[in-house]
């Protein structure tokens, strides 16, 4: 049996864990919030802390435990491993079940993959973005468990970024450069960002012109973006700028097919941003509605 601990703070990752668990065999999903579309057996607990994790682990004695490489998963997994002494693999991007688990971990800053064979029982901390969350959706069978253990760590306050977002932490960043033309087009970029649940950012010239606040600057004298997707619109890709782009996927739109930004892009689109954006936004709106 696989025991999945849902992610408390970035709940959407939970679906990805369920998608993986499904492939590994029987599973139960432990969550501390209401989910109405998780596929399979769901155990609803009041709180998710290490004492609860330990209790459920002892109760179900799973062959594998899955956590997300996310704020609560990265705290609870090693604690459990420390207490129980069972093997733990982190940064997992692929996992198969068999006599032993076969895991692949992404390490050395993404430069190295390592294939591992892991004895059962064991713990896995799974990276985001490798399993389709939709596969984890379905109809849940919810069981409520009344476990409310005192914890040595207590959340006292959640601080949202003041008025402006922190682009360095955002998963999706829509970034604009000089190729955007004039200031009015910033609105189009903002709209695209909204449609993709992302935030808007810019290269230095845009910030210097006062079209976006300084907090939105990407690059050496601005911030480094580390999220999942970085969409560069009309950015040529000067060294100073590229230094601040550490997102996993870069999508670049530029009229110049030799623009250096394409060298770090996964997908490059040779087009004029100002022509492309209205069409793209229209299409995304259709899908949304």
């Amino acid at each position, binding site marked *: 049996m696989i025991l999945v601990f849902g992610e408390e703070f970035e709940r959407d990752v939970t679906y990805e864990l369920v998608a993986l668990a499904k492939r590994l065999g029987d599973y139960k999903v432990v969550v501390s919030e209401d989910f109405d579309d998780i596929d399979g057996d769901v155990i609803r607990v009041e709180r998710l802390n290490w004492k609860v994790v330990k209790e459920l682990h002892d109760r179900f004695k799973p062959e594998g435990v899955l956590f997300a490489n996310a704020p609560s998963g990265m705290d609870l997994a090693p604690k459990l491993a420390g207490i129980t002494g069972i093997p733990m693999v982190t940064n997992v991007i692929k996992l198969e079940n068999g006599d032993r688990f076969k895991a692949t971990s992404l390490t050395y800053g993404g430069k190295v993959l390592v294939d591992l064979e892991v004895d059962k029982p064991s713990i896995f901390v799974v990276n985001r973005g490798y399993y389709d969350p939709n596969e984890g959706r379905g109809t849940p069978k919810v069981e409520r468990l009344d476990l409310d253990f005192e914890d040595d760590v207590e959340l006292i306050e959640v601080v949202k970024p003041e008025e402006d977002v922190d682009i360095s932490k955002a998963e999706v960043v829509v970034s604009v450069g000089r190729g955007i033309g004039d200031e009015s087009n910033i609105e189009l970029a903002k709209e695209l960002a909204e449609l993709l649940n992302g935030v808007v950012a810019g290269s230095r010239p845009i910030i210097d012109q006062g079209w976006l606040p300084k907090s939105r600057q990407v690059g*050496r004298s601005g911030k480094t973006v580390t999220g999942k997707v970085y969409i560069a619109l009309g950015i040529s890709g000067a060294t100073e700028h590229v230094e601040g782009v550490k997102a996993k996927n870069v999508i670049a739109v530029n009229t110049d097919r030799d623009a250096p930004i394409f060298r770090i892009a996964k997908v490059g689109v040779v087009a004029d941003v100002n022509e492309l954006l209205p069409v793209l936004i229209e299409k995304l709106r259709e899908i949304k509605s």
Partner: protein
Amino acid sequence: MDMLLNRLKELTNNKYFQCIQCGTCGGSCPYGAYTPYTPRRMILAIRLGMVEDILNSNAQWLCTACQTCTSRCPSRIQITDGIIPALREKSLLEGKVPEELSTALINIMRYGNPFKESPMKRDGWAKELDFEVPTMMKKKSAEVLLLPECFGAYHRRCKQATKALAKVMKILEVDFAILGREERCTGDHVRLCGEFALFEDLMEKNMKVFRKYEFKYIVTHDAHAFNALKNFYGLNVLHHSQFLHDNLEKLKGMFNELDYTVTYHDSCYLGRKNGIYEEPREVIRSIPGVRFVEFKRNRENALCCGAGGGGIWLDSVMREFVKVRPAEDRVREAKEVGADVIVTGCVLDIPMFEDALKVTGLDGEIVVKDIAELVLEALEGG
């Protein structure tokens, strides 16, 4: 405090005591209107024992080391190479370093370049050429040692200038070589930022490498490297504009016509600091078809690009104080005199001006070229 005073005495030859508080420095400073401490006020504050006030204001970081104040100071006080680095050193020792600069310094200390690039890849630019650029390690001796310095070696845009220079050397059939992975930062910015120990360490390591090989002189297109090698390492070094000038007779016979209106930007460490004004101008003027116009502020009165003395890593500090960057003012000035090409004397100028062109919306109207790029274009036929 004593350490600061000793450093000031050493770097200014005791002259900082001689300030007559005339304010020429402040009026000459590109940031004079923005900074809470002009050099004059810094000296005054030091005399009054208010050094911490200067350091807390961050004014010591608001200097592009452009040498204008120093070159004009009637008391001949070394402000740029003395007062500022001494104050910066104190900042460094107190652990108060702007983040960008801090990162650059850590990288230079660890990897010999500010970009956190591998020293192994220092000759990466040469591999992008369709001919082989020999290394000293292989050749042992050459007439010319070509030194691209960090920006020329790693920076995507500056590399283009390095490649152009190498191509010109090849066309001129110059016997040249590079140090490749044995090269490391020459450290002029490091020195101007007050990290004297690191500068000396770099110098020591570099000198060890230089001594291994035989060459007649070094050629570099980095004005700061030129300055460090000439005035601190004491080596025989030519700025590439001098090198091109020396070969002008030969080049003239090969030039094709170019249809440009060109202005030339005097880089601070070429001009004000080292008095090289005419060679680059003569090279540009000798290209047929080129119309040469001067910036209004030229030669010793030229405005700085803003990159020097670590300025390229102090953008965030500067932004706190300054509304218009000098580079932006400079490109507008180029427009004013009707130039469509700004030719630069230092590779650091290129990214500064290209950025400024974007900010001012002049990209498309004006392009920035290194003098080697212009020469190569004339050689290759426009």
